[in-house]
């Protein structure tokens, strides 16, 4: 009888111990999931009216990319330069070639002869369309940090986030002029580049556009480096640019309208040539994380986005009206 009682007490004790341990475990788990009273909430700004979404995602394919990488398009090929690799794909995602580069890439552009220009931190290299190294420029110094390239004929425009300036160079890397230096007499306030997001592109008329990300404006420059025009709007709302360094990337379509890509709350948008907001290519809900996808556009007005979080090349096409 006594032995039975002892057994019962031991079993009850064992059950009690298991219950206490289980409760503590569940309690700890629940403690990890409680609501955050200090949450930084931007959900309101992530919502996009569906009528404003003008594009749809046609296809995508996987690509292993670091967040220090770039995408460019030419004819029916997509070039992705990432880490120390140059990758070329067709639009179905079939890899055409993969070349080992000599250093870590920071940006890429393709010229009209399909030559591939690659920015590598403080210098530029050029490969032919088959991936053979043709040119290598000298270093622009320790402070240089190239974040974007734009090619127009014999002119190579290099955005240097480190020195907050755009260099107009010849194909051998000799500086023709510096664009965007602060000059009160010429009405140039200078580039404000808080982080290495500083993009440039050439419009259909051959004029240079640069994203002055610290001021949330696009600046347009004449051939002589004088400021031609600018547009931009600071706002978390869909028609504006938010945060310290947006638009992080942009590309110009053949009709001179702009495709922009933002960081923080990633979204890709379409503006007309005067900076009027037209609509959305990809809303924030199409992305996870906070990195801005690098973008390129082709002659069919398709938008090719390099999504660093999803590790994909994503191709967006305009919806049929």
């Amino acid at each position, binding site marked *: 009888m006594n032995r039975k009682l002892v057994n019962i007490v031991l079993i009850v004790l064992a059950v009690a111990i298991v219950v206490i341990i289980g409760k503590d475990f569940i309690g700890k788990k629940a403690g990890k999931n409680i609501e955050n009273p200090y949450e*930084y909430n931007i959900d309101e700004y992530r919502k996009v009216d569906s009528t404003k979404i003008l594009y749809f995602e046609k296809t995508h394919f996987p690509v292993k990319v670091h967040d220090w990488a770039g995408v460019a398009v030419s004819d029916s090929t997509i070039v992705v330069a990432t880490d120390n690799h140059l990758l070329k794909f067709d639009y179905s995602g079939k890899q055409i070639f993969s070349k080992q580069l000599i250093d870590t890439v920071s940006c890429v552009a393709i010229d009209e002869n399909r030559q591939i220009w690659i920015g590598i931190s403080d210098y530029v290299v050029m490969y032919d369309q088959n991936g053979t190294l043709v040119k290598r420029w000298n270093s622009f110094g320790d402070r240089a940090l190239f974040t974007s390239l734009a090619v127009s004929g014999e002119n190579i425009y290099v955005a240097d986030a480190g020195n907050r300036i755009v260099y107009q160079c010849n194909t051998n890397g000799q500086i023709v002029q510096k664009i965007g230096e602060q000059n009160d007499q010429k009405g140039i306030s200078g580039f404000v580049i808080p982080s290495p997001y500083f993009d440039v592109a050439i419009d259909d008329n051959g004029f240079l556009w640069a994203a002055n990300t610290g001021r949330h404006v696009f600046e347009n420059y004449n051939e002589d480096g004088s400021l031609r025009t600018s547009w931009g709007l600071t706002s978390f709302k869909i028609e504006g640019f938010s*945060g310290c360094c947006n638009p992080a990337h942009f590309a110009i379509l053949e009709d001179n309208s702009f495709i922009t890509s933002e960081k923080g709350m990633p979204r890709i948008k379409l503006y007309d040539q005067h900076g009027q907001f037209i609509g959305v290519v990809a809303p924030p809900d199409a992305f996870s994380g906070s990195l801005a996808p690098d973008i390129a556009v082709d002659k069919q007005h398709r938008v090719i986005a390099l999504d660093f979080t999803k590790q994909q090349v994503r191709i967006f096409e305009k919806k049929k009206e």
Partner: protein
Amino acid sequence: MSDKKEPKSIERRRFLRSGMQMALAVSLGGVAGVSLLKSTSKDLVWQLDPFKCVQCGRCADECVMTPSAVKCVHAYDLCGYCDLCGGYLKPDANARTTAAENQLCPTAAIKRQYIEEPYFEYVIDEDLCIGCAKCVAGCTSFGNGSLHLQVRHDLCKNCNDCSIARVCPADAFQRVPADTPYLIKGGFTKGGSSKDNLKKG
């Protein structure tokens, strides 16, 4: 009957005596071992890895100290000194000013100081900071991630079982040597170049 019982009693006494002696020896050895370990090993303190932090807000509420021993710190070498600072201003701020309604920090612990057009410096008032990480979330999403949390060791009680570490959803808390107690963001902490850290920010 009695002849059989006597040797058993002696055995039990011996067993108890030797058991007690053994337990005493083990406990003395244990104490000596722990003392030796403590005197030879480095002291450890709690710290949170800012690269793992998910800005959940637990650091403000779970610390045994009031206000929390976790404070926001600023890696000035990473900061863009922006006019539009995601860590200072509310997303829906009416203007880029120091007006209370525009400030993201619930305790107004960040001081904004004009340097030159268009640059501003942001300084943390640690007496006001509660370690809620709201500014860290804003800075990490829209800026370079220069604002981040750290356990301040002039305030931390260095509890054996840190109450924040118990509930940290990112397991960002770890024991670090007391002679290098901080994990400050910046080019000098993660081994990479400052350019790498900037890009990731």
